[in-house]
């Protein structure tokens, strides 16, 4: 690219240079130009990819004075982003999970965005509590939040009814660990199927989300400071012991990876699938399709309170601005783009993710979307990891690996938790 630039300088005038400011936006969520082509009809689009594609098309149509270059990267895009930053050529705006922001912020690789958001007319005071916790680090805003991703119970109500676990059209959920076991056994006896559908293979995030949630519920501090994790605690042992018990009794699916678990739930192979908000859309479609095992028998609920308080461990997507030299006109273009995106956050929430802006959460049209009333509380009560937690995805991998081993019985619970704690602390000791 540099050579090309040099060549252009030497051969000045060989092509009419485009004077418009260019912004490079890099995102995951896939490529679906085939379905949506040049469409600018955001309201008619569905799926994460479709909504973003039409949004970007619309921005280009409405802002001919800005050159928008879109780079779609394979999920989650972080190896590419790291490579681009290392090569000194980062994009202007990038999709990033809120739990990942601390990694880049701590290393000084992100621009604080307070200023550009003001310029965009986006008021940080309108972020939902969960979204604000995800993007504000040490008093500064490092991203424009886009949504909140939570974990839920996706429920097959037909099987729950068969097990006698429906009351007034609502699933009956447990209020204690003992009740959970009792209901799970009752479910298995009545339907012959496992109560929980879970992934135990190649899916570390599954167990980590459950563990974090129920540690938060019990008021445990998981990350006391930037260099330590606390997992070898009585509270953690209780949580893991419960899930080990479920596994040992065959009250949950075994030996499945995430795709297998997903398919199992769609086939009506189990009662409850504790997975993320992102599956609401696809499962809703199944629930509307005659002949499906989920036809008219799909409900969702937050993780039930088994210990202590209601709690939800959440994450979310956000738009960050990698640090780079940018001209005033480029910054203005970025601001305009962010302001534009923020106005369409309601459309994004049709995907199943919770909106990042409080006003959207309160609109009737959002409340009218299926199931959203059941989970809206997550946007305010959802807890993000503390701002000092770095390398969340690596840590999740380590903890998840040990939890999988404990739940499936490869390792004793005490040892798995102690190993997880030791491995994470050693990772932190190596960080600058």
């Amino acid at each position, binding site marked *: 690219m540099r050579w090309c630039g040099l060549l252009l300088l030497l051969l000045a005038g060989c092509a009419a240079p485009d004077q418009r400011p260019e912004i490079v936006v890099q995102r995951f969520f896939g490529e679906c130009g085939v379905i949506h082509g040049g469409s600018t009809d955001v309201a008619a689009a569905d799926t994460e990819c479709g909504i973003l594609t039409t949004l970007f098309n619309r921005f280009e149509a409405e802002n001919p004075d800005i050159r928008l270059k879109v780079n779609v990267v394979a999920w989650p895009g*972080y*190896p590419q982003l*790291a490579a681009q*930053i*290392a090569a000194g050529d980062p994009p202007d705006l990038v999709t990033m999970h809120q739990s990942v922001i601390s*990694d880049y912020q701590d*290393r000084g*690789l992100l621009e604080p965005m307070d200023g550009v958001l003001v310029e965009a007319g986006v008021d940080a005071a309108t972020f939902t509590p969960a979204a604000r916790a995800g993007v504000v680090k040490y008093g500064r805003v490092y991203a424009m939040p886009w949504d909140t991703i939570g974990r839920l119970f996706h429920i097959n109500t037909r099987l729950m009814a068969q097990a006698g676990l429906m009351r007034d059209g609502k699933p009956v959920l447990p209020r204690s660990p003992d009740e959970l076991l009792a209901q799970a056994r009752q479910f298995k006896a009545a339907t012959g199927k496992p109560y929980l559908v879970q992934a*135990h*293979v*190649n*899916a*570390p995030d599954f167990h980590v989300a459950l563990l974090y949630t129920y540690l938060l519920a019990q008021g445990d501090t998981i990350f006391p400071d930037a260099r330590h994790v606390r997992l070898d605690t009585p509270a953690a042992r209780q949580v893991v012991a419960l899930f080990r018990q479920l596994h040992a009794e065959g009250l949950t*699916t*075994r*030996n*499945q*990876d995430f*795709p*297998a678990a997903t*398919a*199992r739930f769609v086939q009506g192979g189990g009662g409850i699938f504790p997975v993320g908000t992102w599956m609401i859309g696809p499962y809703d479609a199944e629930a509307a399709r005659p002949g499906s095992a989920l036809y008219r028998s799909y409900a969702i609920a937050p993780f039930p309170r088994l210990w202590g308080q209601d709690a939800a461990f959440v994450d979310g997507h956000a738009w960050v601005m990698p640090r780079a030299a940018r001209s005033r006109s480029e910054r203005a273009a970025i601001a305009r783009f962010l302001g534009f995106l923020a106005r369409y956050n309601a459309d994004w929430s049709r995907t199943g993710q919770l909106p990042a802006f409080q006003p959207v959460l309160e609109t009737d049209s959002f409340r009218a979307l299926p199931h959203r009333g059941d989970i809206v509380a997550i946007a305010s009560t959802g807890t993000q990891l503390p701002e000092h937690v770095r*390398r969340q*995805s*690596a840590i999740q*991998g380590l903890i998840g*690996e*040990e939890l*999988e*081993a404990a739940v*499936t019985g*490869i*390792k004793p619970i005490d040892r798995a938790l102690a190993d997880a704690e030791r*491995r994470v602390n050693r*990772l932190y000791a*190596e960080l*600058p």
Partner: protein
Amino acid sequence: MKSGGAPRRLEGLAFVAPFLLLYGVVLIWPLLMGIGISFHRADLFGAREWIGLGNYATALADPVVHQAIGNTLLLALLIVPPLTALALLLALALNRATRGAAVFRGIFFSSSVLSVTIVTLIWRFILTPDAGLLAVAADALGREPLPFLSDQALVIPAIAITTIWWSLGFPIMLFLAGLQQVPADVYEAAALDRAGRWTTFRHITLPAIRRTLLLVVMLQTVGQLQLFGQAQLLTGGGPGGGSRTIVLAIFEVAFGRWELGYATALAEILFAMILVVTLLQYWLVTRREDAG
């Protein structure tokens, strides 16, 4: 070949120079840079702090690394010998100019055209215990399906079988190319001597393709010691690290933890391992040649 003055002698260098130049700049120079980085606590973005052999000491004391080395060696051992033997047998059977043989050659090559993403996606379907093809077979026999991807004792063989299926095509091609170099009249002589198949194979074919055999074994060893995609995509290195290979560990350390110094140190350790193993293989095969 022993004649020729200085220009003649330098002519040879001109033939190898283009390759050597690229080789030096694009491979050896980055290798040396990497060795340099491995003595530092370094991240992906240029931070460097000299810690001498610190990363190597950490690696040697890291149980995760020990497990990964063990897994990697076991995988190579379970893949290379059966793969080589199978490929050789198939090459011997298909070393003929008939149309049928050509069709078979195409079939045994076909899996190689797939990328690792698709190979693992397909084998997931075969191996997964509740809906996979093997589960259906086990069901038909009235047995519990084996949890290939979640049992620490089964996961390495499962990955080995997947890899053998995927990698068969190229060794067959190498053996076929090697067999082309065996002069046909030698076989005719053997046939006149009424030598048995085994005798012909043992005393004519095998010595003639010994170099190809060495090449296949060395290439496969080098390749399988770097096994990565199958483990990452099928199991993520699980269960309990039971299928984490060295390269998967390097990937996690580099891109998940940004510890470039530690990652390069692990890569140098892998380099040393590969070097020792291949040199050993090379020496075992060629020493007889040099002696005779």
